[in-house]
């Protein structure tokens, strides 16, 4: 039963929450003796004030879209996949193998090939915990945490002992051949006569990420599989009644989730660094959890939450470049944003609801019988996935 109109729920609540987070961040900046207004201006200008800034913002956002979607899909089946980090690492390995050892004639084919490998490797890395959960009852939260560590060790081994070009100090793979270079936004937009910064790393993976949002949306709300995933997530006894196999749903969902996380590698590994480095994922898998939670597990929400985090990353980088503010400030700001928009959102929602109710009361007394229709599929549950 909705008290508030949808626009208030979707726009007003997050906006006010964001403002509160910004306010508190400003206080923190003040406390360490810096000028908050200058800092915010710098962040906004640096992240959104130029195609260059956008280029980086969107690059980070692309990573977060993939990992956010990965977590979101699993949430719909009530599976809490904390393993996005490890799955994305493995995805990177898949991309590197595809890019280095197959002679691709054209980047487009390479993108498809590397994407398949990335998805496959990520999927495998998620499928094992999925299988252990479905068949052995091992809690997917623990196993995915463990698999993050195992992935790190595996990657370390591969980069230090196997894929590192001989004599190179850098625990990284060789550079990918020119043929697999993915077009950047600059190269994509130039033919259209749009000037986009040449140096920003945003690349065609952004479009893949956007497409992934649409595909995930279709999957979850338009296909039978998505219907079954959601049903299973909401009620396991009911799913059983309907003949939905728990093992199948758990496995399929984890595989899709892992594939999405793995796909991130086409952005950071293939699109940006064009070689596989240690720690290529840089915690994007964990940011994905926050992104999915904040986006309420809906692709559109994930998209915007990823943008927000992309903005924070790039704005934070600018702050670090031009001021002596320690980089940890950005971490604090991220924390406040997550806290206010994600966990304390009811602090804003409750008074707002009361406000809206005050304007509604004079209407005819309602019974459950004439209550508001529920919002569309976007209101899917995201809370508590365990």
């Amino acid at each position: 039963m909705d008290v508030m109109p949808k626009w208030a729920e979707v726009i007003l609540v997050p906006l006010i929450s964001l403002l509160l987070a910004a306010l508190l961040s400003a206080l923190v900046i003040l406390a360490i003796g810096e000028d908050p207004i200058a800092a915010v201006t710098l962040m906004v200008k640096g992240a959104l004030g130029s195609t260059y800034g956008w280029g980086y913002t969107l690059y980070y956002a692309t990573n977060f879209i993939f990992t956010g979607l990965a977590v979101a899909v699993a949430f719909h089946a009530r599976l809490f996949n904390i393993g996005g980090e490890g799955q994305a690492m493995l995805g990177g390995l898949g991309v590197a193998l595809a890019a280095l050892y197959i002679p691709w004639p054209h980047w487009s084919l390479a993108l498809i090939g590397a994407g398949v490998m990335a998805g496959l490797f990520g999927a495998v890395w998620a499928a094992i915990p999925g299988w252990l959960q479905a068949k052995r009852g091992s809690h997917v939260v623990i196993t995915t945490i463990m698999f993050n560590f195992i992935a790190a060790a595996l990657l370390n081994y591969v980069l230090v002992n196997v894929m590192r070009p001989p004599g190179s100090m850098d625990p990284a793979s060789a550079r990918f051949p020119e043929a697999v270079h993915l077009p950047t936004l600059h190269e994509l937009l130039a033919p259209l006569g749009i000037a986009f910064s040449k140096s920003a790393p945003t690349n065609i993976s952004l479009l893949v990420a956007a497409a992934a949002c649409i595909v995930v949306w279709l999957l979850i709300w338009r296909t039978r599989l998505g219907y079954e995933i959601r049903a299973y997530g909401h009620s396991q006894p009911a799913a059983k009644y309907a003949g939905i196999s728990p093992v199948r749903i758990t496995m399929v969902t984890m595989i899709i989730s892992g594939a999405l996380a793995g796909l991130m590698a086409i952005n950071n590994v293939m699109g940006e660094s064009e070689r596989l480095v240690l720690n290529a994922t840089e915690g994007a898998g964990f940011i994905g959890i926050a992104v999915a939670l904040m986006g309420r597990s809906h692709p559109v929400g994930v998209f915007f939450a990823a943008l927000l985090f992309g903005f924070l990353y790039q704005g934070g980088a600018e702050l670090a470049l031009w001021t002596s503010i320690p980089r940890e400030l950005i971490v604090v700001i991220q924390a406040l944003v997550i806290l206010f928009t994600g966990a304390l959102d009811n602090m804003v929602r409750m008074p707002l609801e009361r406000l809206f109710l005050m304007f509604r009361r004079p209407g005819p007394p309602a019974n459950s019988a004439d209550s508001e229709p529920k919002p569309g599929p976007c209101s899917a549950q995201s809370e508590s996935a365990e």
Partner: protein
Amino acid sequence: MDYITLIQLLDSTVRLATPLLLACLAGLFSERAGVFDIGLEGKMLAAAFFSAALASITGSVWIGLAAGIASSLALSAVHGLASITFRGNQLISGVAINFLAAGMTVLIAQDWFAQGGRTPSLFGGARFEPITLPFADAMADVPIIGPLYEELISGHSILVYAAFLAVPLTWWILFRTRFGLRLRAVGENPAAVDTAGVSVVGLRYAAVAIAGLLCGVAGAYLSTALQAGFVKDMSAGRGFIALAALIFAKWRPWYALWATLLFGLFGALETRPDVIQSVIGIKVQGQILSALPYLMTVVILAGFVGKAIPPRAGGEPYVKER
């Protein structure tokens, strides 16, 4: 592997298990009351910093400990506010707390000490020193039990003994007191507690506060007992391992002890590749060694531990009216 090596290994196990155990019991209180807590890591980190910072400033480790606990409690209060009062998402709140602690500790450390997110090294009374139990030296030469007593049982900081005592205490509180009964009930069915005339909110806050207290001790142990100062990110994922141990332990105090000791043992084994080599006969490659604790966990989990059923009302805010 000879006896003394075994003792040394177990000694290391105890040290490594202690912060895990404290954090695990913290999680146990919170989750038994129906509040999931993935912010153990952050609380531990904050406490590690503040206890080292205050110990360094005042020269007293006890003031440090109090400050560590206070900081951890403050983060607990944030978690409580978000997940109990405002019925927010407990997982998000935990994630936020982890970020908050990671950033804030370094920010404040830099502001206070200007040593790049560290505290100065702690000396003398600003540190928890190992305690030598009575007769430890005298007994050292007694065969078998001598080394056991002297090496393994004696010679830890007071917080280690506190952590181990916390296990029976936790068990006693949960299963033998009124408070424990109510706390367990509120994690299973808050409505039952509510209709029995007991405040759900009050109980959950109490549980979250106990979690804060225990995480505070865990953090202080890291920076003032195991180490002599704070280094950024020094909790190094132990909060998550504690969480894994909690699930592993099926939310039970004694199991929590065994689970964290097991994790501690894996960690200790990782530092002794020579022992592993002597036991299995082949040299274990470095990266495999690093992955070993995690691999073993997965294997044990899949092989020997059945399904863990969390407290039924866990993770759900208590909502009476929507």
